[in-house]
């Protein structure tokens, strides 16, 4: 191994690490301090009738965080201009009145959630039950609004009835209603992560540095280890990998008329078809559906393409492996890197669609670097794992065909996450692809950084799979040639 070049490369890697850490801090720092949370509401299916003077409506709410900052209310105006005042009062479990605020009825939108920020954030306990009381002044029949209520949740095209306890139902003048009011409470949760951020970053760096130092010492004594593999990959085999990647890329579209344009066209066409099909199939409660869809398609396509390319890398290069010596990991790594080039090209139409739909380009887009790195590590791990399996059992490729299809349906690519029944959500969120795609969507569509937990999930899932892949591959690589 070339120690001088390796030293340079490790220095560069360390610099990249700190640059990425700083980038995340600058872009996402505010969101590490606190995070906005909102309680859920049922879907609207009925109205409570005109809110006129003398009517008292109550509804219990769960405080979403330590600070409750506002309400969102789904009102109906009967399609006319109404006047008067709506008084919003909130009391806590102890019966103490936390808020009494008047809202001009004219400010309420028809059939849409209207956000009502509080003059000052309310100190609440998270999970505490608050009682909302609504009364009006200056509203008479023919000049009044109504509030939507419901007892179902939307799951795709269907509405699923929910069981609601009596305590959760709204009341009108003390009489129990059919369900809950369409009201959401929003709040701000403070996070301690902000404080610990640099400690965690430095800690991870320290651990990596200790490992590297140990491996470096071993390498000086001529021992082979992970560090040596990574360094020689960069210093000695970079040219070879570049050649192999450019070979894959050049031959892929060599005989097609449109050539490289297929890399853009493919995701665009898939998106168009799915957009037409699914925008009529699902209630359009997804904000910015074209971008939502295309993000899912581009990210998932990269995953499935790279993994299947990586999977066949050893069996597909059998003739080469039997005749030329090079480290075995070169094969899956180069295949996956060529998929990465394809992925980079497929991101271009994503940006185009963002421009067309008027999605703003915000600094949070830079966080995609982190997301893509995690995805790449995950894909690398999967590729190494499957190519090992594939060498011993050719059935793997057919099995993978089925598994990747199931995986696709388990990931919210074209459907909204809200169709998943609540009891499966925890399990559903464990899907790493869900994590990477949701991460990307938050960065692209919402223009925000995901919560710290999302970062942690991305790192953990990718590192776990990568480590597993590397270990399994390394243990078996000497046997590959005997099975080809």
């Amino acid at each position, binding site marked *: 191994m070339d120690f001088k070049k390796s030293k340079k490369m490790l220095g560069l890697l360390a610099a990249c690490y700190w640059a990425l850490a700083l980038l995340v801090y600058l872009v996402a720092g505010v969101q590490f301090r606190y995070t906005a949370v909102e309680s859920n509401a049922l879907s609207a299916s009925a109205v409570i009738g005109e809110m006129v003077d003398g009517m008292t409506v109550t509804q219990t709410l769960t405080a979403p965080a330590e600070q409750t900052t506002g309400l969102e209310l789904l009102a109906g105006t009967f399609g006319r201009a109404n006047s008067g005042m709506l008084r919003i009062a909130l009391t806590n479990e102890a019966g103490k009145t936390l808020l009494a605020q008047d809202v001009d009825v004219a400010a309420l939108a028809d059939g849409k959630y209207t956000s009502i920020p509080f003059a000052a954030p309310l100190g609440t306990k998270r999970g505490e039950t608050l009682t909302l009381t609504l009364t009006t002044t200056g509203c008479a029949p023919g000049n009044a609004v109504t509030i939507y209520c419901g007892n179902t949740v939307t799951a795709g095209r269907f509405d699923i009835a929910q069981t609601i306890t009596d305590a959760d139902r709204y009341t009108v003048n003390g009489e129990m209603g059919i369900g809950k009011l369409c009201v959401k409470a929003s709040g701000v949760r403070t996070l301690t992560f902000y404080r610990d951020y640099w400690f965690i970053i430095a800690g991870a760096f320290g651990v990596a540095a200790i490992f590297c130092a140990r491996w470096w010492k071993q390498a000086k004594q001529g021992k082979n280890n992970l560090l040596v593999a990574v360094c020689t990959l960069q210093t000695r085999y970079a040219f070879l990998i570049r050649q192999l990647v450019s*070979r894959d890329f050049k031959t892929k579209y060599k005989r097609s008329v449109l050539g490289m344009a297929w890399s853009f066209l493919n995701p665009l066409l898939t998106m168009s078809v799915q957009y037409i099909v699914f925008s009529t199939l699902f209630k359009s409660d997804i904000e910015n559906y074209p971008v939502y869809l295309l993000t899912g398609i581009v990210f998932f396509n990269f995953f499935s393409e790279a993994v299947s390319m990586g999977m066949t890398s050893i069996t597909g290069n059998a003739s080469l492996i039997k*005749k030329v010596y090079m480290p075995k990991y070169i094969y899956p790594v180069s295949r996956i890197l060529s998929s990465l080039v394809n992925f980079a090209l497929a991101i271009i139409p994503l940006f185009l669609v963002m421009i067309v739909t008027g999605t703003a380009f915000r600094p949070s887009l830079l966080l995609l670097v982190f997301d893509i790195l995690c995805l790449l590590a995950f894909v690398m791990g999967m590729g190494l794992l499957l190519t090992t399996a594939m060498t011993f059992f050719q059935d793997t490729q057919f099995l993978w065909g089925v598994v990747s299809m199931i995986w696709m349906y388990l990931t919210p690519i074209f459907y909204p996450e809200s169709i998943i029944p609540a009891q499966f959500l925890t399990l559903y969120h464990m899907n790493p692809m869900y994590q990477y795609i949701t991460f990307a969507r938050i960065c692209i569509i919402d223009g925000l950084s995901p919560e710290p937990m999302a970062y942690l999930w991305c790192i953990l899932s990718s590192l776990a799979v990568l480590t597993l892949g590397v270990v399994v591959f390394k243990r078996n690589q000497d046997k590959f040639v005997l099975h080809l």
Partner: protein
Amino acid sequence: MENMIEVQNVTMRFRMANDRISSIKEYAIAKLRGKLQYSEFEALKNVSFDVKRGEVVGLIGHNGAGKSTMLKVISGILKPTEGSVRVAGNVAPMLELGSGFDMDMTGRENIFLNGAILGYSEEFLKRKYDEIVAFSEIEPFIDMPLRNYSSGMVARLAFSIATVVVPEVLIVDEVLSVGDAAFQEKSLMRMMELMSGGTTVLFVSHSQSQIRKMCNRVVWLEHGQVQAFGDAREVCALYEKG
């Protein structure tokens, strides 16, 4: 003198299932029927020899004696089941020419691809590019895809790329006859030039005259075992008798 190649007690054992099982279903069925038997096949048994710096060592033996397996073990393609192989310096194994050629790419692109696969550096290839093209005599077709080449042209290009390097250790598996008579002579000259230039060479050939002419020492392999190892003439004489 310094040992460039050191082969110590190398045993190469292949485990061959009666039918090669490559699917989980087959595996399960074979296992259930109790038919999962392996027969072990020893391609090399306890082979030891060494090649010193600047020496030309020949490897002879009948078909299936383990010559190619031995070369593959030394090149690092196969890992020995037992024993060890140590090679000092950079090795250029010429086991099969043109490995990794892509028929859809041009001659020029293939020079760089194949060169990279053989372990050449980028700047070395750039420096030697003209030499490779000139030696292979395919200048007018260099920007055409390889699938339009004749097989002789492909072989010539492959030979030119493989032999452009002057390695410390050269491992050759009968690659000397490529192309037409004129090119064959030219390629033989190049091989001679490489072998006589102080390079350490280990090569397999069925031509006794070539072996006698070029080698200092000879390893005679028979059924995976070293039958004789020593002076070229002596071993060759033994081989011809036996």
